[in-house]
């Protein structure tokens, strides 16, 4: 059993009571809501005649259904309009802050909470969205919940939970130039499998993790859930504190120093006990691309689609289904696979540094003929920061579209979607069948820089060949 880890400490601090069923009542420090998974929770709350216990601890935004072209109200899609209107009414009725379109603070829920300084070390964070694991980058214990649990958090600011085991993912060395946190996490999931993390929280640690920026750490923790781990986290350190300082909801003045001392005390101690540990070497990781229909079906861009013989027996049925669905040949290199659509965005890779990395590749180049390429900033703040440094003009000059913030083609609940059998190079997190809006559409997951490279070449290509060589100390 784990002991002395950040997970253990935060768990203990938030334990309200042991419940008769054997689970623990856990206080939730920050509750984030959006338009897709909250309306039924508010309806249930009203049916039960309950009110919101701590409306000041719940924060709302709208992200999944927002159009990324015209955001004028009412939305062209009446269902999308109804969803936002319902969220607005629920927030108004219950006194919950909503960061809506045009507020300057709207965006994908997992982008805006860290950006506003709402997400802080040592908190428990819950949201009706599986990628809530993102917030673990700050040393929070953050996890996705279902709509019944959203109702429970609204009503009681707490949840009935079972404690997870803790696995330390220790990463030695440094990522090479052109290799990003996205590649690292795809590599981890490829190695441990999409169900490898079930029952675990993943603690990411080691020399390769310590030097990652907060945005890279968010990419990493974001995809912990794709490895089956309900939450992932990185211990808070100076990089965390520097990032938080001065953000609108971060502590200030004398409270700041007390906060830093408290946050520092929460990090896993040197003698912390883990239920499990797995080690990786960052130096051997190549830009990684998925070829199949789960995020675990990933390979280095310099590798070939694995053959059935190279696939462990119990993964063969899924591999066969993936060959059929993706229409990719086993044994054939993934580099050179033609793509139709290139999407840069999502809560995994829609932050400023992601757009900078993609723009560095796009700069002075042109999107290949016939390719639809578009960039969707993760939030209004990301969009403004990117525009301030001219990234929008770099993308537009290269032939990318520059859109308004939202989830967009990550899951295609808005008008951005694949058509028919189109294949996308996507910086999002899920390559499930039908994920990007067409029941037969296909998705290749990769880093934003790799998506930009695919857009320029019109096919999957190794971004390292398009980048100037940078010594890793300067990353």
């Amino acid at each position: 059993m784990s002991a002395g880890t950040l997970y253990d400490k935060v768990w203990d601090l938030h334990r309200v009571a042991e419940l008769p069923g054997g689970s623990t009542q856990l206080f939730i420090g920050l509750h984030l809501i959006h338009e897709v998974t909250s309306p039924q929770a508010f309806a249930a709350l009203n049916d039960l005649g309950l009110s919101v216990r701590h409306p000041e601890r719940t924060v709302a935004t709208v992200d999944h259904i927002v159009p990324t072209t015209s955001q004028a109200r009412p939305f062209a899609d009446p269902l999308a309009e109804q969803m936002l209107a319902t969220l607005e009414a629920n927030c108004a009725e219950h006194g919950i802050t909503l960061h809506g379109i045009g507020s300057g603070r709207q965006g994908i829920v997992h982008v805006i909470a860290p950006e506003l300084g709402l997400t802080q070390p040592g908190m428990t964070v819950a949201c009706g969205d599986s990628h809530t694991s993102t917030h673990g980058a700050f040393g929070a214990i953050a996890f996705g919940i279902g709509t019944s649990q959203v109702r429970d958090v609204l009503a009681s600011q707490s949840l009935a939970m079972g404690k997870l085991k803790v696995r330390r993912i220790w990463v030695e060395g440094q990522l090479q130039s052109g290799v990003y946190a996205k590649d690292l996490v795809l590599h981890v999931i490829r190695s441990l499998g999409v169900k490898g993390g079930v029952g675990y929280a993943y603690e990411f640690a080691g020399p390769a993790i310590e030097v990652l920026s907060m945005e890279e750490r968010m990419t990493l923790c974001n995809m912990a859930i794709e490895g089956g781990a309900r939450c992932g986290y990185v211990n808070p350190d100076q990089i965390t504190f520097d990032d938080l300082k001065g953000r609108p909801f971060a502590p200030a003045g004398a409270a700041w120093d007390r906060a830093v001392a408290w946050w520092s005390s929460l990090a896993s101690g040197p003698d912390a006990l883990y239920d499990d540990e797995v080690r990786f070497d960052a130096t051997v990781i190549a830009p990684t691309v998925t070829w199949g229909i789960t995020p675990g079906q990933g390979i280095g861009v310099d590798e070939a689609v694995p053959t059935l013989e190279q696939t462990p027996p119990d993964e063969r049925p899924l591999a066969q289904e993936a060959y059929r669905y993706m229409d990719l040949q086993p044994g054939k290199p993934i580099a050179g696979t033609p793509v139709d659509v290139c999407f840069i965005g999502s809560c995994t890779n829609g932050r400023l540094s992601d757009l900078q990395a993609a723009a560095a590749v796009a700069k002075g180049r042109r999107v290949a003929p016939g390719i639809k390429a578009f960039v969707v900033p993760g939030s209004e703040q990301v969009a403004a920061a990117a525009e301030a440094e001219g990234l929008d003009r770099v993308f537009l000059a290269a032939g990318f579209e520059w859109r308004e913030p939202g989830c967009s083609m990550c899951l295609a609940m808005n008008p951005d979607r694949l058509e028919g059998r189109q294949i996308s190079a996507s910086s999002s997190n899920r390559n499930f069948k039908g994920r990007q809006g067409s029941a037969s559409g296909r998705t290749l997951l990769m880093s934003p820089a790799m998506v930009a490279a695919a857009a320029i070449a019109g096919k999957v290509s190794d971004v390292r060949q398009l980048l100037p060589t940078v010594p890793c100390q300067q990353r």
Partner: protein
Amino acid sequence: MTSTPFPMGPIQALRGRAVVVAGDDIDTDRIIPARFLKCIAFEGLGSQVFADDRAERPASHPFDHPAAQGASLLVVNRNFGCGSSREHAPQALMRWGIRAVVGESFAEIFYGNCLALGIPCFTAPHDGVLSLQAALAAIPTLQLVVCLDSLRLEAADGQSWQLELQPGPRQMLLSGQWDATSQLLSNGADLDRLVGALPYLNGF
């Protein structure tokens, strides 16, 4: 789809026919594609369960098999319900008529979402699930009953399988307290104490 009432109160046993959806890592995007999430109520979801998989193989998807109509048990393999946290997935299954799931393993959020609706997710070892699936392939209309007390799954033809269910969820279902809201609300004083003590809620 059945008109069986939704789960309510203590659940001692579950009975009925079963539908088998074989394969590992079946994600919630497949159980209910994202476009059906554009709703503010769960009501209509039952008919949309597995919509794209069913359209891909018209009339041959397990949920469209004549023997599956009216089934209340779902038999799956490993890591069922992975991916998105959408409760729309168990809601769609429940509204179609599913009242219990048997599989090798489940994604955690899906498991919890099912429990919150009073739908147990039982596990059984690989071989057990395969033999159950084989029995159902041989007799698709086989009547089954699962007892929450003994955790035995018994078939009308005399075969039986041992299932597992974590003690907590099992107790919650047996006692009818699988819906946590009232329990959570009953500890208000403890909750207030904690709110008064947490550094980040008190200026550190």
